[in-house]
Protein backbone atom coordinates (compact mmCIF):
# COMPACT_ATOMS: atom_id res chain seq x y z
CA UNK A 1 0.00 0.00 0.00
CA UNK A 2 2.80 2.39 0.95
CA UNK A 3 4.51 1.58 -2.30
CA UNK A 4 1.39 2.48 -4.24
CA UNK A 5 1.00 5.77 -2.36
CA UNK A 6 4.65 6.56 -2.98
CA UNK A 7 4.20 5.77 -6.68
CA UNK A 8 1.13 8.02 -6.93
CA UNK A 9 3.01 10.86 -5.22
CA UNK A 10 5.93 10.39 -7.61
CA UNK A 11 3.59 10.48 -10.59
CA UNK A 12 1.88 13.61 -9.28
CA UNK A 13 5.26 15.23 -8.77
CA UNK A 14 6.34 14.30 -12.30
CA UNK A 15 3.12 15.66 -13.75
CA UNK A 16 3.41 18.82 -11.67
CA UNK A 17 7.00 19.17 -12.87
CA UNK A 18 5.87 19.01 -16.49
CA UNK A 19 3.10 21.51 -15.77
CA UNK A 20 5.55 23.90 -14.09
CA UNK A 21 7.93 23.57 -17.05
CA UNK A 22 5.11 24.45 -19.43
CA UNK A 23 4.22 27.50 -17.35
CA UNK A 24 7.86 28.58 -17.20
CA UNK A 25 7.99 28.82 -20.97
CA UNK A 26 6.90 32.20 -22.34
CA UNK A 27 5.98 30.76 -25.73
CA UNK A 28 3.76 28.17 -24.07
CA UNK A 29 2.03 30.88 -22.04
CA UNK A 30 1.42 32.84 -25.25
CA UNK A 31 0.02 29.70 -26.90
CA UNK A 32 -2.24 28.95 -23.93
CA UNK A 33 -3.53 32.56 -23.83
CA UNK A 34 -4.31 32.46 -27.56
CA UNK A 35 -6.11 29.12 -27.24
CA UNK A 36 -8.05 30.22 -24.15
CA UNK A 37 -9.20 33.32 -26.04
CA UNK A 38 -10.42 31.15 -28.92
CA UNK A 39 -12.07 28.66 -26.56
CA UNK A 40 -13.82 31.57 -24.80
CA UNK A 41 -15.04 32.96 -28.15
CA UNK A 42 -16.32 29.56 -29.22
CA UNK A 43 -18.22 28.90 -25.97
CA UNK A 44 -19.60 32.39 -25.41
CA UNK A 45 -20.11 33.40 -29.07
CA UNK A 46 -23.82 34.06 -28.39
CA UNK A 47 -22.96 36.60 -25.70
CA UNK A 48 -19.86 38.36 -27.00
CA UNK A 49 -20.78 38.57 -30.67
CA UNK A 50 -21.98 42.14 -31.41
CA UNK A 51 -24.29 41.13 -34.30
CA UNK A 52 -26.04 38.12 -35.77
CA UNK A 53 -23.37 36.55 -38.04
CA UNK A 54 -25.99 35.68 -40.70
CA UNK A 55 -27.82 39.00 -40.67
CA UNK A 56 -27.67 40.57 -44.15
CA UNK A 57 -27.78 44.34 -44.42
CA UNK A 58 -27.13 45.42 -48.01
CA UNK A 59 -27.04 49.09 -47.04
CA UNK A 60 -23.90 48.41 -45.03
CA UNK A 61 -22.05 46.20 -47.51
CA UNK A 62 -18.24 46.43 -47.73
CA UNK A 63 -18.00 48.97 -44.89
CA UNK A 64 -14.49 49.57 -43.62
CA UNK A 65 -13.65 48.95 -39.93
CA UNK A 66 -15.38 51.53 -37.73
CA UNK A 67 -16.62 51.93 -34.17
CA UNK A 68 -19.92 50.29 -35.16
CA UNK A 69 -18.32 47.39 -36.99
CA UNK A 70 -14.85 46.94 -35.51
CA UNK A 71 -13.61 44.68 -38.35
CA UNK A 72 -15.96 46.09 -41.00
CA UNK A 73 -18.67 44.33 -42.98
CA UNK A 74 -18.59 41.86 -45.86
CA UNK A 75 -20.14 41.89 -49.34
CA UNK A 76 -23.60 41.26 -47.88
CA UNK A 77 -23.24 43.78 -45.06
CA UNK A 78 -22.69 41.09 -42.40
CA UNK A 79 -20.49 42.00 -39.42
CA UNK A 80 -17.06 40.39 -39.93
CA UNK A 81 -16.15 40.29 -36.21
CA UNK A 82 -19.35 38.39 -35.41
CA UNK A 83 -18.70 35.95 -38.24
CA UNK A 84 -15.13 35.39 -37.06
CA UNK A 85 -16.33 34.79 -33.48
CA UNK A 86 -18.91 32.22 -34.62
CA UNK A 87 -16.39 30.81 -37.07
CA UNK A 88 -14.20 29.88 -34.09
CA UNK A 89 -16.71 27.16 -33.21
CA UNK A 90 -16.54 25.69 -36.69
CA UNK A 91 -12.78 25.84 -37.11
CA UNK A 92 -12.04 24.41 -33.66
CA UNK A 93 -14.63 21.72 -34.32
CA UNK A 94 -12.93 20.82 -37.62
CA UNK A 95 -9.53 20.63 -35.90
CA UNK A 96 -10.70 18.63 -32.89
CA UNK A 97 -13.11 16.24 -34.62
CA UNK A 98 -10.64 15.43 -37.39
CA UNK A 99 -8.03 14.59 -34.74
CA UNK A 100 -10.57 12.43 -32.86
CA UNK A 101 -11.25 10.50 -36.09
CA UNK A 102 -7.51 10.14 -36.66
CA UNK A 103 -7.03 8.93 -33.07
CA UNK A 104 -9.99 6.53 -33.09
CA UNK A 105 -8.73 4.64 -36.11
CA UNK A 106 -5.00 5.40 -36.18
CA UNK A 107 -4.14 4.49 -32.59
CA UNK A 108 -5.66 0.96 -32.57
CA UNK A 109 -4.28 0.35 -36.08
CA UNK A 110 -0.75 1.32 -35.06
CA UNK A 111 -0.94 -0.40 -31.67
CA UNK A 112 -2.12 -3.74 -33.05
CA UNK A 113 0.40 -3.58 -35.93
CA UNK A 114 3.29 -2.80 -33.59
CA UNK A 115 2.31 -5.35 -30.95
CA UNK A 116 1.41 -8.27 -33.23
CA UNK A 117 4.15 -7.73 -35.83
CA UNK A 118 4.45 -10.18 -38.73
CA UNK A 119 1.74 -10.32 -41.37
CA UNK A 120 -0.69 -8.08 -39.49
CA UNK A 121 2.01 -5.41 -39.19
CA UNK A 122 2.82 -5.72 -42.90
CA UNK A 123 -0.82 -5.41 -43.94
CA UNK A 124 -1.67 -2.54 -41.59
CA UNK A 125 1.46 -0.58 -42.40
CA UNK A 126 0.92 -1.29 -46.10
CA UNK A 127 -2.43 0.48 -45.75
CA UNK A 128 -0.83 3.46 -44.01
CA UNK A 129 1.92 3.55 -46.67
CA UNK A 130 -0.74 3.83 -49.36
CA UNK A 131 -2.57 6.59 -47.48
CA UNK A 132 0.72 8.43 -46.92
CA UNK A 133 1.41 8.25 -50.66
CA UNK A 134 -1.21 10.95 -51.14
CA UNK A 135 -0.24 14.48 -50.06
CA UNK A 136 -2.60 15.04 -47.09
CA UNK A 137 -4.57 17.92 -48.63
CA UNK A 138 -4.95 15.95 -51.87
CA UNK A 139 -6.27 12.95 -49.93
CA UNK A 140 -8.77 15.18 -48.12
CA UNK A 141 -9.87 16.73 -51.43
CA UNK A 142 -10.22 13.29 -53.04
CA UNK A 143 -12.40 12.07 -50.16
CA UNK A 144 -14.57 15.19 -50.31
CA UNK A 145 -14.87 14.65 -54.07
CA UNK A 146 -16.33 11.21 -53.35
CA UNK A 147 -18.49 12.05 -50.33
CA UNK A 148 -19.69 15.45 -51.52
CA UNK A 149 -18.92 18.98 -50.37
CA UNK A 150 -20.02 19.72 -46.83
CA UNK A 151 -18.58 20.63 -43.45
CA UNK A 152 -19.10 17.14 -42.01
CA UNK A 153 -17.49 15.49 -45.03
CA UNK A 154 -14.55 17.91 -44.77
CA UNK A 155 -14.02 16.85 -41.13
CA UNK A 156 -14.21 13.16 -42.08
CA UNK A 157 -11.81 13.71 -44.99
CA UNK A 158 -9.23 15.54 -42.86
CA UNK A 159 -9.64 12.92 -40.12
CA UNK A 160 -8.96 10.07 -42.56
CA UNK A 161 -5.85 11.86 -43.84
CA UNK A 162 -4.58 11.95 -40.22
CA UNK A 163 -5.11 8.22 -39.54
CA UNK A 164 -1.76 7.07 -41.03
CA UNK A 165 0.14 9.73 -39.07
CA UNK A 166 -1.21 8.43 -35.75
CA UNK A 167 -0.83 4.80 -36.82
CA UNK A 168 2.86 5.28 -37.67
CA UNK A 169 3.53 7.19 -34.46
CA UNK A 170 1.82 4.65 -32.18
CA UNK A 171 3.38 1.67 -33.96
CA UNK A 172 6.84 3.12 -33.35
CA UNK A 173 6.10 3.73 -29.66
CA UNK A 174 4.58 0.26 -29.20
CA UNK A 175 7.59 -1.37 -30.86
CA UNK A 176 9.91 0.34 -28.40
CA UNK A 177 7.76 -0.64 -25.41
CA UNK A 178 6.65 -4.18 -26.11
CA UNK A 179 9.92 -5.76 -24.97
CA UNK A 180 9.92 -3.93 -21.62
CA UNK A 181 9.62 -5.68 -18.25
CA UNK A 182 6.15 -4.42 -17.39
CA UNK A 183 4.79 -5.97 -20.59
CA UNK A 184 6.52 -9.26 -19.79
CA UNK A 185 5.07 -9.05 -16.27
CA UNK A 186 1.56 -8.48 -17.63
CA UNK A 187 2.00 -11.46 -19.96
CA UNK A 188 3.26 -13.50 -17.00
CA UNK A 189 0.12 -12.91 -14.96
CA UNK A 190 -2.00 -14.00 -17.93
CA UNK A 191 -3.28 -10.67 -19.23
CA UNK A 192 -4.91 -10.86 -22.68
CA UNK A 193 -3.25 -9.17 -25.66
CA UNK A 194 -6.13 -6.67 -25.76
CA UNK A 195 -5.53 -5.78 -22.11
CA UNK A 196 -1.76 -5.57 -22.56
CA UNK A 197 -2.10 -3.20 -25.53
CA UNK A 198 -4.82 -0.95 -24.21
CA UNK A 199 -4.20 -1.00 -20.44
CA UNK A 200 -0.44 -1.33 -20.23
CA UNK A 201 1.30 -0.20 -23.43
CA UNK A 202 -0.92 2.61 -24.74
CA UNK A 203 -0.99 4.62 -21.49
CA UNK A 204 2.81 4.75 -21.80
CA UNK A 205 2.59 6.14 -25.35
CA UNK A 206 0.38 9.05 -24.31
CA UNK A 207 3.07 11.74 -24.41
CA UNK A 208 3.82 11.56 -28.16
CA UNK A 209 0.11 11.07 -28.91
CA UNK A 210 -0.80 14.24 -26.98
CA UNK A 211 1.95 16.24 -28.71
CA UNK A 212 0.98 14.97 -32.16
CA UNK A 213 -2.72 15.62 -31.49
CA UNK A 214 -2.01 19.23 -30.57
CA UNK A 215 0.03 19.77 -33.73
CA UNK A 216 -2.50 17.97 -35.91
CA UNK A 217 -5.36 20.12 -34.61
CA UNK A 218 -3.39 23.03 -36.08
CA UNK A 219 -2.99 21.18 -39.39
CA UNK A 220 -6.68 20.27 -39.31
CA UNK A 221 -7.68 23.92 -38.90
CA UNK A 222 -5.50 24.96 -41.86
CA UNK A 223 -6.75 22.06 -43.99
CA UNK A 224 -10.38 22.83 -43.06
CA UNK A 225 -9.89 26.47 -43.97
CA UNK A 226 -8.20 25.36 -47.22
CA UNK A 227 -11.17 23.16 -48.14
CA UNK A 228 -13.53 26.00 -47.19
CA UNK A 229 -11.49 28.36 -49.38
CA UNK A 230 -11.79 25.99 -52.35
CA UNK A 231 -15.55 25.72 -51.74
CA UNK A 232 -15.21 22.06 -50.74
CA UNK A 233 -15.83 22.49 -47.00
CA UNK A 234 -18.40 24.56 -45.12
CA UNK A 235 -21.00 25.98 -47.48
CA UNK A 236 -22.51 29.51 -47.44
CA UNK A 237 -23.81 31.15 -45.34
CA UNK A 238 -21.88 29.22 -42.63
CA UNK A 239 -19.36 31.64 -41.10
CA UNK A 240 -16.26 29.52 -41.67
CA UNK A 241 -12.93 31.36 -41.87
CA UNK A 242 -11.68 29.77 -45.12
CA UNK A 243 -15.02 30.25 -46.86
CA UNK A 244 -15.07 33.90 -45.70
CA UNK A 245 -11.67 34.41 -47.33
CA UNK A 246 -12.82 32.73 -50.51
CA UNK A 247 -15.80 35.04 -50.98
CA UNK A 248 -13.83 38.08 -49.83
CA UNK A 249 -11.06 37.70 -52.40
CA UNK A 250 -13.34 38.98 -55.15
CA UNK A 251 -13.46 42.30 -53.30
CA UNK A 252 -9.77 42.48 -52.38
CA UNK A 253 -9.23 45.70 -54.34
CA UNK A 254 -12.09 47.63 -52.76
CA UNK A 255 -12.42 45.99 -49.34
CA UNK A 256 -9.21 44.16 -48.35
CA UNK A 257 -10.38 43.89 -44.73
CA UNK A 258 -12.78 41.08 -45.72
CA UNK A 259 -9.78 38.88 -46.47
CA UNK A 260 -7.32 40.27 -43.99
CA UNK A 261 -9.06 39.51 -40.68
CA UNK A 262 -10.25 35.93 -41.25
CA UNK A 263 -6.76 34.96 -42.48
CA UNK A 264 -5.12 36.61 -39.50
CA UNK A 265 -7.49 34.67 -37.22
CA UNK A 266 -6.58 31.35 -38.86
CA UNK A 267 -2.91 32.18 -38.41
CA UNK A 268 -3.36 33.02 -34.72
CA UNK A 269 -5.32 29.83 -33.99
CA UNK A 270 -2.70 27.69 -35.74
CA UNK A 271 0.06 29.60 -33.94
CA UNK A 272 -1.57 28.86 -30.58
CA UNK A 273 -1.71 25.11 -31.18
CA UNK A 274 1.79 25.01 -32.69
CA UNK A 275 3.32 26.91 -29.76
CA UNK A 276 1.64 24.63 -27.26
CA UNK A 277 2.56 21.52 -29.27
CA UNK A 278 6.23 22.52 -29.53
CA UNK A 279 6.50 23.14 -25.80
CA UNK A 280 4.61 19.95 -24.93
CA UNK A 281 7.04 18.04 -27.13
CA UNK A 282 10.01 19.59 -25.34
CA UNK A 283 8.53 18.86 -21.91
CA UNK A 284 7.03 15.42 -22.52
CA UNK A 285 9.71 13.88 -24.75
CA UNK A 286 12.84 13.33 -22.66
CA UNK A 287 14.93 12.33 -25.71
CA UNK A 288 14.32 15.68 -27.34
CA UNK A 289 15.07 17.44 -24.06
CA UNK A 290 18.45 15.71 -23.88
CA UNK A 291 19.18 16.56 -27.51
CA UNK A 292 18.31 20.20 -26.90
CA UNK A 293 20.52 20.28 -23.81
CA UNK A 294 23.42 18.98 -25.90
CA UNK A 295 22.86 21.56 -28.61
Amino acid at each position, binding site marked *: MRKIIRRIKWLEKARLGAFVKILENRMAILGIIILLAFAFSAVFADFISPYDPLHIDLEKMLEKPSTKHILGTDELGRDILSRIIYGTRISLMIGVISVIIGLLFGVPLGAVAGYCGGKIDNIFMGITDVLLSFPSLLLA*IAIVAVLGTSLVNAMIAIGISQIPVFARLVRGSVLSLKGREFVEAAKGVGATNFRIIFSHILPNCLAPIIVQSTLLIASGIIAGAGLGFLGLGAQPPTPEW*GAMLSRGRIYIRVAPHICFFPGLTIMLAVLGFNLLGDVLRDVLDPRLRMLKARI
Partner: protein
Amino acid sequence: MLAYLVRRLLRIIPTLFGILLIVFLMIRLVPGDPARIMAGEQATAEDVENLRRQLGLDKPIHTQFLIYLASLLQGDLGISLRTRQPVMSEILTRFPATLELSVAGMFVSILIGVPAGVISAVRRYSISDNIAMLIALFGLCTPAFWLGLMLILLFSVTLGWLPAAERGGIEHLILPAITVGMVSTAIITRQTRSSMLEVITQDYITTARAKGNPEKVVILKHALKNALIPVVTIAGLQFGTLLGGAILTETVFAWPGIGRLLVDSIFARDYPVVQGVVLFFSLSFVLVNLFVDILYAYLDPRIVYD
Protein backbone atom coordinates in the same frame (compact mmCIF):
# COMPACT_ATOMS: atom_id res chain seq x y z
CA MET B 1 23.68 0.05 -53.14
CA LEU B 2 22.28 -2.00 -56.03
CA ALA B 3 20.59 -4.43 -53.60
CA TYR B 4 19.05 -1.47 -51.78
CA LEU B 5 17.84 -0.02 -55.07
CA VAL B 6 16.16 -3.27 -56.05
CA ARG B 7 14.55 -3.68 -52.59
CA ARG B 8 13.32 -0.10 -52.64
CA LEU B 9 11.83 -0.56 -56.12
CA LEU B 10 10.13 -3.80 -55.08
CA ARG B 11 8.69 -2.12 -52.00
CA ILE B 12 6.96 0.44 -54.16
CA ILE B 13 4.88 -2.18 -56.02
CA PRO B 14 2.27 -2.88 -53.28
CA THR B 15 2.01 0.87 -52.61
CA LEU B 16 1.37 1.54 -56.29
CA PHE B 17 -1.24 -1.22 -56.35
CA GLY B 18 -2.94 0.32 -53.29
CA ILE B 19 -2.96 3.77 -54.92
CA LEU B 20 -4.48 2.36 -58.12
CA LEU B 21 -7.12 0.50 -56.11
CA ILE B 22 -8.11 3.61 -54.13
CA VAL B 23 -8.24 5.77 -57.25
CA PHE B 24 -10.24 3.08 -59.08
CA LEU B 25 -12.74 2.87 -56.21
CA MET B 26 -13.22 6.65 -56.11
CA ILE B 27 -16.04 6.67 -58.67
CA ARG B 28 -17.54 3.44 -57.34
CA LEU B 29 -17.74 4.77 -53.76
CA VAL B 30 -19.74 7.87 -54.65
CA PRO B 31 -22.94 7.62 -52.55
CA GLY B 32 -25.96 6.84 -54.74
CA ASP B 33 -25.75 6.08 -58.46
CA PRO B 34 -22.46 7.52 -59.77
CA ALA B 35 -23.68 7.48 -63.39
CA ARG B 36 -26.81 9.44 -62.44
CA ILE B 37 -24.76 11.99 -60.46
CA MET B 38 -22.23 12.47 -63.25
CA ALA B 39 -24.89 12.71 -65.97
CA GLY B 40 -26.61 15.53 -64.08
CA GLU B 41 -30.16 16.08 -62.89
CA GLN B 42 -31.59 16.79 -66.33
CA ALA B 43 -30.24 13.64 -68.00
CA THR B 44 -32.71 11.07 -69.28
CA ALA B 45 -32.63 7.42 -68.20
CA GLU B 46 -31.12 6.61 -71.58
CA ASP B 47 -28.31 9.14 -71.09
CA VAL B 48 -27.55 7.66 -67.69
CA GLU B 49 -27.42 4.15 -69.16
CA ASN B 50 -25.14 5.30 -71.96
CA LEU B 51 -22.79 6.93 -69.49
CA ARG B 52 -22.82 3.81 -67.31
CA ARG B 53 -21.81 1.75 -70.33
CA GLN B 54 -19.20 4.30 -71.40
CA LEU B 55 -17.56 4.20 -67.96
CA GLY B 56 -17.88 0.44 -67.77
CA LEU B 57 -19.93 0.66 -64.57
CA ASP B 58 -22.35 -2.01 -65.84
CA LYS B 59 -19.69 -4.74 -65.61
CA PRO B 60 -18.72 -6.78 -62.52
CA ILE B 61 -16.32 -4.86 -60.26
CA HIS B 62 -13.30 -7.14 -60.79
CA THR B 63 -13.72 -6.90 -64.57
CA GLN B 64 -13.92 -3.12 -64.22
CA PHE B 65 -10.64 -3.12 -62.28
CA LEU B 66 -8.86 -5.27 -64.87
CA ILE B 67 -10.12 -3.02 -67.68
CA TYR B 68 -8.96 0.00 -65.68
CA LEU B 69 -5.46 -1.46 -65.24
CA ALA B 70 -5.24 -2.45 -68.90
CA SER B 71 -6.27 1.07 -69.97
CA LEU B 72 -3.71 2.60 -67.62
CA LEU B 73 -0.95 0.52 -69.15
CA GLN B 74 -1.86 2.10 -72.48
CA GLY B 75 -1.81 5.57 -70.92
CA ASP B 76 -5.59 5.83 -71.14
CA LEU B 77 -7.19 7.60 -68.17
CA GLY B 78 -10.61 7.88 -69.78
CA ILE B 79 -12.50 10.75 -71.38
CA SER B 80 -13.42 14.01 -69.66
CA LEU B 81 -17.19 14.30 -69.29
CA ARG B 82 -16.94 18.07 -69.55
CA THR B 83 -14.66 18.64 -72.51
CA ARG B 84 -14.88 15.21 -74.21
CA GLN B 85 -11.06 15.25 -74.43
CA PRO B 86 -8.84 12.38 -73.21
CA VAL B 87 -8.04 12.93 -69.50
CA MET B 88 -4.36 12.24 -70.12
CA SER B 89 -4.07 15.06 -72.66
CA GLU B 90 -5.97 17.43 -70.31
CA ILE B 91 -3.46 16.62 -67.55
CA LEU B 92 -0.39 16.78 -69.77
CA THR B 93 -1.47 20.16 -71.15
CA ARG B 94 -1.71 21.60 -67.67
CA PHE B 95 1.04 19.70 -65.86
CA PRO B 96 3.92 21.97 -67.03
CA ALA B 97 2.26 24.88 -65.21
CA THR B 98 2.04 22.93 -61.93
CA LEU B 99 5.58 21.62 -62.33
CA GLU B 100 6.85 25.14 -62.99
CA LEU B 101 5.10 26.40 -59.87
CA SER B 102 6.32 23.53 -57.65
CA VAL B 103 9.92 23.77 -58.87
CA ALA B 104 9.89 27.55 -58.40
CA GLY B 105 8.45 27.03 -54.89
CA MET B 106 11.19 24.54 -54.07
CA PHE B 107 13.80 26.93 -55.48
CA VAL B 108 12.51 29.74 -53.23
CA SER B 109 12.49 27.40 -50.20
CA ILE B 110 16.08 26.29 -50.68
CA LEU B 111 17.34 29.72 -51.70
CA ILE B 112 15.93 31.31 -48.54
CA GLY B 113 15.73 28.36 -46.13
CA VAL B 114 19.30 27.05 -46.30
CA PRO B 115 21.15 30.41 -45.85
CA ALA B 116 18.66 31.48 -43.16
CA GLY B 117 19.18 28.18 -41.29
CA VAL B 118 22.98 28.44 -41.55
CA ILE B 119 23.05 32.06 -40.32
CA SER B 120 20.69 31.12 -37.47
CA ALA B 121 22.91 28.24 -36.37
CA VAL B 122 26.20 30.11 -36.68
CA ARG B 123 24.86 33.13 -34.81
CA ARG B 124 22.80 31.14 -32.33
CA TYR B 125 20.62 33.21 -29.94
CA SER B 126 21.52 36.44 -31.80
CA ILE B 127 18.91 38.86 -33.10
CA SER B 128 19.20 37.40 -36.62
CA ASP B 129 18.62 33.88 -35.22
CA ASN B 130 15.56 35.02 -33.29
CA ILE B 131 14.13 36.88 -36.28
CA ALA B 132 14.71 33.92 -38.62
CA MET B 133 13.07 31.50 -36.18
CA LEU B 134 10.14 33.84 -35.62
CA ILE B 135 9.59 34.22 -39.36
CA ALA B 136 9.86 30.43 -39.75
CA LEU B 137 7.25 29.94 -37.03
CA PHE B 138 4.85 32.38 -38.69
CA GLY B 139 5.59 30.74 -42.04
CA LEU B 140 4.36 27.45 -40.63
CA CYS B 141 1.20 29.00 -39.23
CA THR B 142 0.17 31.20 -42.16
CA PRO B 143 -2.33 29.64 -44.57
CA ALA B 144 -0.76 29.74 -48.05
CA PHE B 145 -3.94 31.00 -49.71
CA TRP B 146 -4.10 33.96 -47.31
CA LEU B 147 -0.43 34.80 -47.83
CA GLY B 148 -1.08 34.73 -51.58
CA LEU B 149 -3.96 37.17 -51.24
CA MET B 150 -1.91 39.48 -49.01
CA LEU B 151 0.98 39.42 -51.50
CA ILE B 152 -1.46 40.32 -54.27
CA LEU B 153 -2.83 43.12 -52.10
CA LEU B 154 0.64 44.55 -51.41
CA PHE B 155 2.61 43.96 -54.61
CA SER B 156 -0.15 44.05 -57.22
CA VAL B 157 -2.98 46.20 -55.90
CA THR B 158 -1.09 48.72 -53.72
CA LEU B 159 2.39 48.95 -55.27
CA GLY B 160 1.55 47.73 -58.77
CA TRP B 161 4.95 46.01 -59.07
CA LEU B 162 3.92 42.47 -59.98
CA PRO B 163 0.99 40.89 -61.84
CA ALA B 164 -1.71 39.29 -59.71
CA ALA B 165 -2.88 36.47 -61.94
CA GLU B 166 -2.35 34.16 -64.90
CA ARG B 167 0.77 32.44 -66.14
CA GLY B 168 3.34 34.40 -68.11
CA GLY B 169 6.92 35.57 -67.73
CA ILE B 170 9.11 35.36 -64.65
CA GLU B 171 7.27 38.31 -63.08
CA HIS B 172 4.09 36.22 -63.04
CA LEU B 173 5.89 33.45 -61.18
CA ILE B 174 7.34 35.41 -58.25
CA LEU B 175 4.26 35.79 -56.04
CA PRO B 176 2.88 32.25 -56.62
CA ALA B 177 6.35 30.76 -55.99
CA ILE B 178 6.71 32.59 -52.67
CA THR B 179 3.18 31.55 -51.71
CA VAL B 180 3.59 27.88 -52.53
CA GLY B 181 7.11 27.69 -51.09
CA MET B 182 6.47 29.46 -47.79
CA VAL B 183 5.75 26.43 -45.59
CA SER B 184 8.69 24.52 -47.08
CA THR B 185 10.95 27.54 -46.54
CA ALA B 186 10.03 27.56 -42.86
CA ILE B 187 10.62 23.82 -42.48
CA ILE B 188 13.93 23.88 -44.38
CA THR B 189 15.14 26.85 -42.29
CA ARG B 190 14.40 24.98 -39.06
CA GLN B 191 15.91 21.72 -40.31
CA THR B 192 19.09 23.40 -41.60
CA ARG B 193 19.53 25.20 -38.30
CA SER B 194 19.17 22.09 -36.17
CA SER B 195 21.39 20.00 -38.51
CA MET B 196 24.07 22.68 -38.50
CA LEU B 197 23.93 22.97 -34.70
CA GLU B 198 24.48 19.24 -34.43
CA VAL B 199 27.32 19.19 -36.95
CA ILE B 200 29.29 22.20 -35.67
CA THR B 201 29.81 20.51 -32.29
CA GLN B 202 31.50 17.50 -33.95
CA ASP B 203 35.22 16.81 -33.50
CA TYR B 204 36.08 17.10 -37.18
CA ILE B 205 34.87 20.69 -37.19
CA THR B 206 37.18 21.47 -34.26
CA THR B 207 39.97 19.78 -36.23
CA ALA B 208 39.17 21.87 -39.31
CA ARG B 209 39.36 25.01 -37.17
CA ALA B 210 42.60 23.84 -35.49
CA LYS B 211 44.17 23.41 -38.91
CA GLY B 212 43.75 27.14 -39.37
CA ASN B 213 40.96 27.10 -41.93
CA PRO B 214 39.06 30.37 -42.13
CA GLU B 215 35.64 30.21 -40.40
CA LYS B 216 33.85 30.65 -43.74
CA VAL B 217 35.57 27.53 -45.12
CA VAL B 218 34.84 25.55 -41.93
CA ILE B 219 31.15 26.41 -42.08
CA LEU B 220 30.53 26.21 -45.81
CA LYS B 221 32.89 23.40 -46.78
CA HIS B 222 33.07 21.15 -43.74
CA ALA B 223 29.89 21.74 -41.75
CA LEU B 224 27.26 22.59 -44.35
CA LYS B 225 28.14 19.67 -46.61
CA ASN B 226 27.26 17.19 -43.86
CA ALA B 227 24.42 19.20 -42.38
CA LEU B 228 22.65 19.24 -45.73
CA ILE B 229 22.10 15.45 -45.83
CA PRO B 230 18.94 15.45 -43.66
CA VAL B 231 17.89 18.71 -45.32
CA VAL B 232 17.80 16.91 -48.68
CA THR B 233 15.34 14.38 -47.28
CA ILE B 234 13.14 17.05 -45.76
CA ALA B 235 13.28 19.10 -48.97
CA GLY B 236 12.25 16.04 -50.98
CA LEU B 237 9.38 15.24 -48.67
CA GLN B 238 8.27 18.83 -48.94
CA PHE B 239 7.46 18.19 -52.57
CA GLY B 240 4.19 16.66 -51.37
CA THR B 241 3.43 19.83 -49.41
CA LEU B 242 4.25 21.84 -52.51
CA LEU B 243 1.89 19.75 -54.63
CA GLY B 244 -0.89 20.12 -52.04
CA GLY B 245 -0.11 23.82 -51.74
CA ALA B 246 -0.19 24.14 -55.51
CA ILE B 247 -3.90 23.25 -55.52
CA LEU B 248 -4.64 26.26 -53.30
CA THR B 249 -2.07 28.59 -54.86
CA GLU B 250 -3.34 27.88 -58.37
CA THR B 251 -6.82 28.88 -57.23
CA VAL B 252 -5.56 32.16 -55.70
CA PHE B 253 -3.48 33.17 -58.73
CA ALA B 254 -5.74 31.71 -61.46
CA TRP B 255 -2.77 29.52 -62.41
CA PRO B 256 -3.73 27.06 -65.17
CA GLY B 257 -2.26 23.92 -63.56
CA ILE B 258 -3.67 20.51 -62.63
CA GLY B 259 -4.59 21.69 -59.11
CA ARG B 260 -7.13 24.05 -60.58
CA LEU B 261 -8.22 21.39 -63.03
CA LEU B 262 -8.91 19.10 -60.05
CA VAL B 263 -11.05 21.65 -58.22
CA ASP B 264 -12.97 22.65 -61.35
CA SER B 265 -13.58 18.98 -62.17
CA ILE B 266 -14.93 18.26 -58.68
CA PHE B 267 -17.52 21.01 -59.10
CA ALA B 268 -18.38 19.77 -62.59
CA ARG B 269 -18.61 16.18 -61.27
CA ASP B 270 -16.16 15.21 -63.97
CA TYR B 271 -14.98 12.14 -62.05
CA PRO B 272 -12.70 10.66 -64.74
CA VAL B 273 -10.61 13.86 -64.59
CA VAL B 274 -10.71 13.90 -60.76
CA GLN B 275 -9.50 10.30 -60.76
CA GLY B 276 -6.78 11.05 -63.29
CA VAL B 277 -5.45 14.11 -61.45
CA VAL B 278 -5.44 12.35 -58.05
CA LEU B 279 -3.55 9.44 -59.61
CA PHE B 280 -1.11 11.77 -61.32
CA PHE B 281 -0.44 13.76 -58.13
CA SER B 282 0.09 10.68 -55.95
CA LEU B 283 2.32 8.93 -58.49
CA SER B 284 4.46 12.07 -58.76
CA PHE B 285 4.68 12.16 -54.96
CA VAL B 286 5.70 8.49 -54.73
CA LEU B 287 8.32 8.87 -57.46
CA VAL B 288 9.82 11.94 -55.82
CA ASN B 289 10.00 10.07 -52.49
CA LEU B 290 11.70 7.18 -54.24
CA PHE B 291 14.21 9.55 -55.80
CA VAL B 292 14.88 11.19 -52.42
CA ASP B 293 15.47 7.81 -50.77
CA ILE B 294 17.95 6.81 -53.46
CA LEU B 295 19.66 10.19 -53.30
CA TYR B 296 19.89 9.86 -49.51
CA ALA B 297 21.53 6.44 -49.81
CA TYR B 298 24.00 7.90 -52.29
CA LEU B 299 24.79 10.95 -50.13
CA ASP B 300 25.19 9.10 -46.85
CA PRO B 301 26.87 5.71 -47.34
CA ARG B 302 26.97 5.14 -43.54
CA ILE B 303 23.29 4.26 -43.56
CA VAL B 304 22.61 0.53 -43.27
CA TYR B 305 19.38 -0.44 -44.97
CA ASP B 306 17.32 -3.37 -43.76
